[in-house]
C-alpha cells in the first residue's frame, strides 16, 4: 500500500505524465508495467481456476483438485505441461504468419490494462481518451486470430477465423454505442473520471447499456453462448486447431486475459470500478472483476451456442437498434434532467429496458435457417 500511495502522491492524480518528468515518469511506468503484467498473469491463472472449479461444481463434479491444496496450482501445472509440448507447425502453414499470430493476439489483451484504474489515479496512463483507446486496441486481437486461422492452412481454422472477424466487426458497434451512453452521463472519456463520476453505479442508470455491453463483450471475446470461433462440437477448436505448445498457451492466455479485460472494463464502466465501502479500493476492483467473470462462467455452463447467422442477426437487428435507442434516451435525459434528479433515471431506465427487451423479443426472430441449394 505504501508504495502505491507514494506513486500516487508524486504526481498529479489526473495527469498521465507527472510534473517531475522524466524521473517520475519512468518510475511510474516501470512500476505499473510490472504490476500490470503480474496482475494479468495472476488474474488469468485465478480465473482459469475459478472457471474450472466453478464449472465443475455446477456440473456436479469437482474440477481440478490434485495439484496443491484444492488444486490451486492446476493452472501452473497446465502451463508447465503445455510449455513442454512439442511445437508442431503444419507443413503447408504460412510459417511467419503462423508464428506471429499468437503474439499479435496477445499484445492488445495486455495493452488494454494500461488505462484501467485500480484505484483513484492508480493506472499506467490516465489517457483523456481512455475508453476510446480500449475500443481501438481491443479489436486488434482479431487480427491475430485471423492470422492464426489463415496461417494454419486448415479449413476448420479458417472457418473459425472468418466467423470471428464477422462477429467482432458486428459486435463492435453496439459495444461502442453502449459505452457512449456511459460517457454521456460521466461527461468524460477518461476511465478514472468515469469511475469518479459513479456516485451511483452506472449499471443502475444504464441497465440497458450494461446488458448490451455485457452481451457484446461476451461476443467480442468468444465467450459462450457466442463461442462460435472455437465451437468444439463444430469446428474442433476453431482457429487454434493447429497450434500446440507455447503458441497454444499464448492463445489460451489471450482468451482469459481478454475475459479479465472485459470484466475489468465492465467493472470500471458500470459497477463503479474501485469504489466501495470498507475494503481497500484495489480489492474492491478485483472482487468486482471476479464477480463479472463468474457470471460469464455461469452463462457458459448453461447456455447452448447460437448459430453464425443468428449471431449476426442478433447484433444488427437486436443489439444495434437497442443501443441506438438507449443512446437517444440517455442523451435526452442528460439534456433535460439536472444533476440532483439523477436518481429519477434509475426506475425510468429499468422500466424502459424491460419494455424494450420485451418488445424486441416479440418482434425479433432469430435466423431464418434454410438456404435453398
Amino acid at each position: 500500500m505504501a508504495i502505491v500511495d507514494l506513486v500516487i502522491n508524486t504526481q498529479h492524480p489526473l495527469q498521465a505524465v507527472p510534473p517531475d518528468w522524466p524521473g517520475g515518469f519512468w518510475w511510474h511506468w516501470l512500476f505499473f508495467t510490472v504490476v500490470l503484467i503480474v496482475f494479468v498473469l495472476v488474474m488469468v491463472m485465478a480465473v482459469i481456476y475459478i472457471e474450472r472449479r466453478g464449472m465443475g461444481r455446477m456440473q456436479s463434479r469437482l474440477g481440478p483438485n490434485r495439484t496443491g491444496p484444492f488444486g490451486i496450482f492446476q493452472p501452473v501445472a497446465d502451463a508447465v505441461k503445455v510449455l513442454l509440448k512439442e511445437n508442431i507447425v503444419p507443413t503447408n502453414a504460412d510459417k511467419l504468419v503462423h508464428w506471429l499470430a499468437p503474439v499479435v493476439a496477445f499484445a492488445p489483451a495486455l495493452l488494454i490494462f494500461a488505462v484501467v484504474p485500480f484505484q483513484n489515479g492508480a493506472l499506467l496512463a490516465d489517457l483523456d481518451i481512455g475508453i476510446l483507446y480500449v475500443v481501438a486496441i481491443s479489436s486488434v486481437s482479431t487480427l491475430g486470430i485471423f492470422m492464426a486461422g489463415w496461417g494454419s492452412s486448415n479449413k476448420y481454422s479458417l472457418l473459425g477465423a472468418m466467423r470471428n472477424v464477422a462477429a467482432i466487426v458486428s459486435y463492435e458497434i453496439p459495444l461502442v454505442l453502449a459505452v457512449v451512453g456511459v460517457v454521456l452521463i460521466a461527461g468524460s472519456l477518461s476511465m478514472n473520471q468515469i469511475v469518479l463520476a459513479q456516485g451511483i453505479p452506472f449499471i443502475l442508470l444504464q441497465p440497458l447499456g450494461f446488458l448490451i455491453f455485457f452481451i457484446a463483450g461476451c461476443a467480442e471475446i468468444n465467450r459462450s453462448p457466442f463461442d462460435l470461433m472455437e465451437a468444439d462440437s463444430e469446428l474442433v477448436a476453431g482457429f487454434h486447431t493447429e497450434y500446440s505448445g507455447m503458441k497454444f498457451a499464448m492463445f489460451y492466455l489471450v482468451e482469459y486475459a481478454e475475459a479479465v479485460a472485459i470484466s475489468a472494463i465492465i467493472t470500471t464502466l458500470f459497477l463503479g470500478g474501485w469504489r466501495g465501502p470498507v475494503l481497500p479500493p484495489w480489492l474492491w476492483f478485483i472482487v468486482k472483476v471476479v464477480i463479472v467473470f463468474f457470471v460469464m462462467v455461469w452463462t457458459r455452463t448453461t447456455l447452448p451456442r447460437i448459430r453464425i447467422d443468428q449471431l449476426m442477426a442478433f447484433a444488427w437487428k437486436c443489439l444495434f437498434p437497442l443501443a441506438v435507442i438507449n443512446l437517444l434516451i440517455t442523451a435526452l435525459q442528460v439534456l433535460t434532467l439536472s444533476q440532483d434528479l439523477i436518481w429519477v433515471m434509475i426506475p425510468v431506465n429499468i422500466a424502459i429496458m424491460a419494455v424494450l427487451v420485451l418488445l424486441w423479443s416479440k418482434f425479433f426472430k432469430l435466423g431464418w435457417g434454410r438456404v435453398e441449394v
Partner: protein
Amino acid sequence: MTIETKEMMLRTEPFVLNFGPVHPSTHGVYRMRATLDGEVVLDIEPVFGYLHRGIEKLAEQRTFTGFIPLTDRLDYVSSMSNNLAYVMAVEKLAGIKVPERAEYIRVIMAELQRIANHLIANGSFLNDCGAYFTPFLYMFREREKIIDLFEMVSGQRLTYNYMRVGGVSQDIPDEFLPALAKFVKQMPGKVDEYDRLLKQNEILLARAKGVGIISKEQAVNCGISGPILRASGVKWDWRRADPYSIYDRFEFDIPTASDGDCYDRFRVRMEEMRQSLRIVEQAMKQIPAGPVRAEVPHIVRPPAGEAYVHIEAPKGELGFYLVSDDSIAAYRCHVRPTSLINLTALREMVRGWKIADLIIIFGSIDICLGEVDR
C-alpha cells in the same frame, strides 16, 4: 481485361470439408465429406466402415449362445435391447417359451436401457448444440444410476450379456428391487430438472426448432424408425403395433410430435423417458416369483428355418433375421441396423443448412457407430 460493371460478383467456389472419422461430435468414427459454400452445406457424402468388424460373419462361426456377448457390441449404449432382440429371434426359431418372471425382468431391463440411451442421446445432442457439457454430465449422472443397477444384475457396466435363450442368465439379486424403486421415485424429478434446464431455453429453440425437418412421408419412405419417426408425427411403436414379450400388459402412451425437427426429436425422447418409467413402475409391481430360465440346453440347436424378430429398441426398430440349418451356429444372421437406416435421410435433412445445423441434426438422429458399421 474487362470488368463487369453491372455485376461485380466475387467469384466463389464450394469447398469440401472433411468431418471425421475423428471429430468431437460425430459420435464415434463416422465420417462425412461435406461440400460447403461458405457456411452453407451443399451436399454431404457419408463414409462408413471405420468400425466394421463383420459381426454378421462372426455369427456364423459362433454358437447361438456364444453370439450373445457380441450383440452387446452392436449398439453399445443399449446392449440390453440388443440382447433382447437376439435372444427373442433365437427363441422364435427354436420355439421356446420364456418363463413369466424372466419376461418381466426383460421388460424392466429394456425400459431402463431405453432411459439410459435417451439420456445419452439427449445429452450429446445438447452438447452438440454447444451447452458446454452441463446437460451431458447431468444426464450421465442419472445414467450412472441405471448402469449401477445393470452392474448389479449382470456384473458388467457396458457389455451386459444378461439375456439368455429362454430367459435371463441369473435372477435379480434381492437388493435390486428396492434400489429400482428408489430410482423410479427419484427419476421423474430429474427429468423435470432437465426440462427446466434447457427445454424452454430461447437459444435452444432458435437453434433446434424448424431445423432438419423430415416430413412424415419421407420418414416412412426412408424406413426411419424410433423417436425420429414419432417426432415426424407417425404414431408407430412396435411395442404397440406388434406387442412382443409382455408389452400388451402395460399402460403407456406413445409420445409423438408433429414438426419432425431437431427440437421435436429431443422432446419425444424426453417424453419417452417418462413413459418408460411408467412401464418400469408397473412391471415392478406385477413381477411374479418363479424360474427365470426355461429348460434350454446351454448350446441351442434350433430346427432348420428362418425367423425375423424386431423390437422397439431405443433408437428404433432393431431386428434380427436368423437362418438356421439345424446346427449349433446360425447359417446367416442379419441385423437390421437401426442407426444405418436412420441415417438414410441425413443428406436431405442437412442440405441448405449451416455447418452448425449439420452437427445438431446429426446429433439429433442419435446413431451408434457400432451398429452402423457392425
